[in-house]
């Protein structure tokens, strides 16, 4: 099924992040640029050596924001591409950068993403869509449908789902870039405001502002650009899929984790690694149920068992498979266009051994999975 053949080995040499939160006085281009500058500094790459840039974002803030964000770094004439792929916009930008390098088209590429997500429930369709009358276009309601079904099928208690938030907040408390750093008990989570039963407010990710950036390079070309290999991390898989027919149709599939499985299979195939090789993972936990179903879809836990693993602490920083080590969407926050590259940032930071108080011990292989409306899924695997 997977017809693409990677060519040159690609490494991530630099990553940068702007804190996630609310930054009312800062426009999208400024927000985006700050993460890019951090990523450039991180690897000491020269701006004029960046040969292509992909910018992920979703909400409209005027045309060609990617070009605007990068203009003050220098007008070098490189192709700059603005990418919209829902919540996977950032990880799609990263995917394009990876494939641009591995196929030999470019040596050095920038992937970056930024967002200023408005408050309130997130919808996929335009405001005049008939779906607004039908009532099904409501991201968290979609997660709530999955959650109730999962609880019915697996016997997972509400407290097990709440534990996903408890863990996310504990991780975020160790992360100065996180949007939500205060910690909660299971009771706090269950007693927070109901949004769409059984989902409560603290089980839904915040709508955030923020940005993230990554610089990628062909391994064989590092010396040519004066780049240091010691902190470089290999990209051993980068998969991007849209929906496969699942028997239920597209009206349902926008909320379904079934679409992660083909992307995971591709990523394992590309890397020659298996679920047993993964030391830590970042997944799309827009709601608590998302984390449980995604780690199962990635074959990291058996179907219906991730809730138990969570309760047993196996997905905590000290567990055998830490999940969403920086707080995830639930606590780090979710600025759509930045999220996929934020996951790359955290994975690279962990594999470099630079994650400070939230460092996972002996982290050699890290995985990142990001979902987007329209059945988009990205899966990347990184190795030290």
């Amino acid at each position, binding site marked *: 099924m997977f017809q693409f053949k990677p060519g040159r080995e690609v490494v991530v040499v630099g990553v940068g992040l702007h804190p996630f939160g609310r930054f009312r006085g800062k426009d999208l281009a400024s927000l985006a640029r700050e993460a890019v500058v951090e990523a450039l500094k991180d690897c000491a790459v020269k701006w004029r050596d960046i040969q292509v840039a992909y910018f992920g974002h979703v909400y409209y803030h005027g045309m060609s924001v990617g070009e605007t964000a990068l203009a003050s770094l220098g007008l070098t004439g490189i192709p700059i591409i603005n990418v919209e792929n829902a919540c996977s916009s950032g990880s799609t930008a990263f995917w394009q950068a990876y494939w641009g390098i591995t196929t030999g088209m470019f040596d050095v590429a920038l992937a970056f993403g930024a967002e200023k997500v408005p408050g309130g429930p997130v919808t996929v369709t335009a405001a005049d869509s008939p779906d607004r009358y039908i009532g099904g276009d409501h991201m968290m309601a979609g997660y709530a449908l999955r959650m109730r079904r999962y609880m019915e099928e697996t016997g997972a208690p509400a407290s097990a789902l709440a534990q996903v938030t408890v863990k996310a907040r504990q991780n975020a408390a160790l992360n100065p870039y996180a949007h939500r750093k205060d910690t909660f008990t299971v009771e706090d989570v269950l007693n927070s405001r109901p949004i769409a039963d059984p989902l409560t407010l603290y089980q839904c990710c915040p709508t955030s502002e923020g940005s993230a950036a990554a610089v990628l390079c062909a391994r064989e070309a590092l010396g040519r650009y004066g780049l240091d290999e010691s902190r470089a991390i290999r990209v051993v898989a980068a998969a991007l899929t849209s929906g496969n027919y699942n028997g*239920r149709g597209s009206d349902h599939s926008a909320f379904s984790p079934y679409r992660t499985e083909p992307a995971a299979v591709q990523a394992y195939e590309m890397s020659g690694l298996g679920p047993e090789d993964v030391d830590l993972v970042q997944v799309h936990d827009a709601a608590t149920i998302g984390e449980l179903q995604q780690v199962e879809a990635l074959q990291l836990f058996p179907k219906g068992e991730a809730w138990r693993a969570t309760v047993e602490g196996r997905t905590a920083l000290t567990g055998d498979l830490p999940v969403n080590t920086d707080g995830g969407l639930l606590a780090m926050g979710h600025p759509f266009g930045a999220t996929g590259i934020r996951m790359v940032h955290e994975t690279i930071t962990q594999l470099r051994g630079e994650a400070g108080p939230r460092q996972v011990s002996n982290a050699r292989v890290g995985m990142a999975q990001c979902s987007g409306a329209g059945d988009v899924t990205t899966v990347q695997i990184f190795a030290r």
Partner: protein
Amino acid sequence: MPESSRNTPKSVDPGRLRLDGDQASTGALLGMRCLDCGISVFGQAVFCQACSSARLEPVDLSRTGTLYSYTIVRVPPEGWPGPVPYVLGEVELPEGPHILAEVIDVAHDALRIGMEVRLALEEVQSGDSGPVFSVYKWAPATESTLGTGEV
């Protein structure tokens, strides 16, 4: 509201719901069935979503299905014209497709995964002057509708 001042109800989505007659309270969910592999999809399609065949025929989908999951939405999306909270159901049709729509005429504590529901059309208006749409919803299938649901 006097009858004369009302807009004529229109299908909320003509590609997914056909109205029959003037009352806009009867109609059918529309689908496409593949003549090669046999699967059905909700709404319009150019090629079969499963096998890519171009040999599709329009069909009326089943009027009953089972509740695959449900949620009580307490914070509605922007533009939601109805009362809050509302029940959103994911309903599995016998042909396969899952269809999300509001579930009406049911007490929250009577909701059960697996319960049988039937298609129910309701007129919905946004505000006092917005357009009137006939919207497809689900309601519990009563004894009398259980036997007559399939068309």
